[in-house]
């Protein structure tokens, strides 16, 4: 254990406290490819975003749009091979993470960037008590004694609003309900006070009322700790209530970036409009729910030009030949990758 303790000391000394609004995480021109038997799958292409302290960034997109792959790349959790980071850079407070050594990544994962996963049912190790798993973080990374670590684990479980934390800490994951497990996962991720929390579809596996509670908890904890939150989701409802900025991804690319207010007020990109139109509304006439025609393209054989043009109702000839770049949109801070941004109604 002496080795781990010395690791602990370096890990806490390297990074200074975060200033308010400090730029924490920068993803620049990131491309991730998977070499498969069917060819090279371009899971993520030229993706850029940044995250500041206290800010919530929502990465929005349907299944297979590359949103999860992009954060796996940030965490260094891509299965390599077959995956590889073809180009681009990921910087955490100025430190390059692409190609960073395992020991650097280990210092960052946990105390600096933590992650919670989609499925709380399988996110906790079934053979250990929940409290033990949280306490392990304090013992392993902070070198606390068993007693102190257990005490902090119970405190933390109380902080994520797990009722009866003293009793719950002694229970095993299968004795927890889905929502409680996700709370325990959040406690686990927050145990080392990370500066950035990446939540990969944290509410997808939960039922609707619990989803709301979990999102509320995340926002509340974020307000307390001023951490940066990257929220990966396909649920526009989840995004609306918490996000500051939104990156919409389609076929591995960012098609629109901007503030959440702009996005919900008037989405610029035709794909974002399609997404918004397909959200069921409580007001207005009843009828068939809108769905974007067609299906997402194969990432091995992307259509030339704009990847969305075969499904786009606004497509013109140039869309099939030239790939649009992210261009600033008039009158707002965001950008949209569409040839017709200015002309769209």
């Amino acid at each position, binding site marked *: 254990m002496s080795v781990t303790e010395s690791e602990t000391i370096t890990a806490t000394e390297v990074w200074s406290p975060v200033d308010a609004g400090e730029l924490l995480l920068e993803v620049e021109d990131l491309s991730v490819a998977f070499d498969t038997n069917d060819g090279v799958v371009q899971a993520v292409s030229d993706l850029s975003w940044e995250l500041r302290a206290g800010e919530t960034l929502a990465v929005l997109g349907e299944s297979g749009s590359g949103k999860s792959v992009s954060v796996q790349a940030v965490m260094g*959790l891509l299965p390599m091979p077959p995956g590889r980071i073809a180009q681009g850079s990921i910087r955490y407070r100025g430190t390059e993470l692409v190609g960073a050594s*395992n020991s650097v990544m280990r210092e960052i994962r946990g105390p600096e960037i933590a992650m919670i996963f989609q499925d709380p049912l399988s996110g906790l190790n*079934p053979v250990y008590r929940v409290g033990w798993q949280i306490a392990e973080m304090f013992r392993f990374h902070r070198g606390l004694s068993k007693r102190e670590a257990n005490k902090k684990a119970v405190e933390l479980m109380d902080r994520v609003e797990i009722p009866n934390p003293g*009793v719950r800490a002694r*229970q095993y994951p299968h*004795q927890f309900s889905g929502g409680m497990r996700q709370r325990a996962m959040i406690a686990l991720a927050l*145990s080392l006070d990370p500066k950035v929390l990446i939540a990969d579809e944290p509410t997808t596996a939960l039922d609707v009322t619990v989803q709301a509670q979990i999102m509320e908890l995340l926002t509340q904890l974020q307000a307390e700790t001023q951490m940066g939150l990257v929220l990966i989701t396909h649920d526009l409802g989840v995004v609306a209530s918490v996000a500051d900025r939104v990156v919409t991804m389609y076929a591995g690319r960012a098609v629109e970036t901007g503030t959440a207010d702009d996005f919900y007020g008037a989405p610029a990109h035709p794909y974002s409009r399609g997404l918004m139109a397909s959200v069921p509304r409580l007001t207005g006439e009843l009828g068939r729910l809108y769905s974007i025609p067609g299906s997402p393209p194969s990432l091995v054989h992307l259509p030339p030009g704009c990847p969305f043009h075969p499904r786009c109702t606004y497509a013109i000839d140039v869309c099939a030949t030239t790939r649009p770049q992210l261009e600033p949109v008039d009158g707002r801070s965001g950008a949209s990758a569409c040839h017709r941004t200015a002309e769209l109604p």
Partner: protein
Amino acid sequence: MTDTDPVAELDGSLDARDQARFDAEGLVGPPRTYWGDAWLILKGRWLFWVSLGIIVTFVSMAIVPQLFVWPSPGPDDPSGLFCFLSDARQPPSSSHWYGTDVQGCDYYAQVTHGARVSLIVALFATLITVIVGILLGGLAGYYGGGVDSLVSRLADGFFALPYLVGAIVVLSALTTQEGRQIWQVTVAIGFLGWPAVVRLYRSTVLQVKNLEYVQAARALGASDARIIFRHILPNAVAPTLVYTTIGMGAVISVEATLSFLGIGLPINSISWGIMISEAGTRIEQSPHLLFFPGLYLIVASLGFVLMGEQLREAFDPRFR
């Protein structure tokens, strides 16, 4: 608070009732675990208790044979410790329950003392296969790629070797001028047994390593060694443990086979395998010389096999 207690129903405020529910949730019964569930299943099975009884009997026989054998003083032999050639190969009687061997020694004492060597070989050969198998299988399964290819092809190579031929080769390589020792036989058996464990453990590691809690542990900064031993091992080890308990019975038989072929334990040691191999030539005149060590071997193997089966049924979720 029970359903038939209307006073409690009416009396308790919502908070109090909720509190009672929480308390009940936390306090009813001990927290159940993977191992705890297995124990609940096991303790209700008579076959588990039978096999446990067999194993405990043979293990205590190996550790303290004095518990089972005591000198039987006779008129010619006041200490009860001597063998008389004049009594050689006598069938079972009241003074010699299992008869006597070719030297005129009490065969019950011989068979009982044979448990130690046979079980030592079984235990340590199995230990070698488990340790090597879990280490190599864990590395192969966790790291994949080149490490996996190397380990898997090595295991395939060992698989291609017929067990007995392999044991003959290894034992002749290990045999020194002083002759064979117990450890050489143990190592030879363990050396040939690990590939099966590697395959089994590697496959369970492959399943477990992609589970989210392993990913989560990595996302929260755990090192490779910690992931392999703390997070993967306890979740992946059950099938391997079960396989090796079943294998224990097989190892005892292999030791007997090797001794029977004359390439096993040194000739002066006492083991069931050696007794069986020596009795083979006299089976018509003195069948009891084959019968009793054979019976012990079969019952001990049965004990381990039954235990293995019971453990498998208790630990493998598909059997629950």
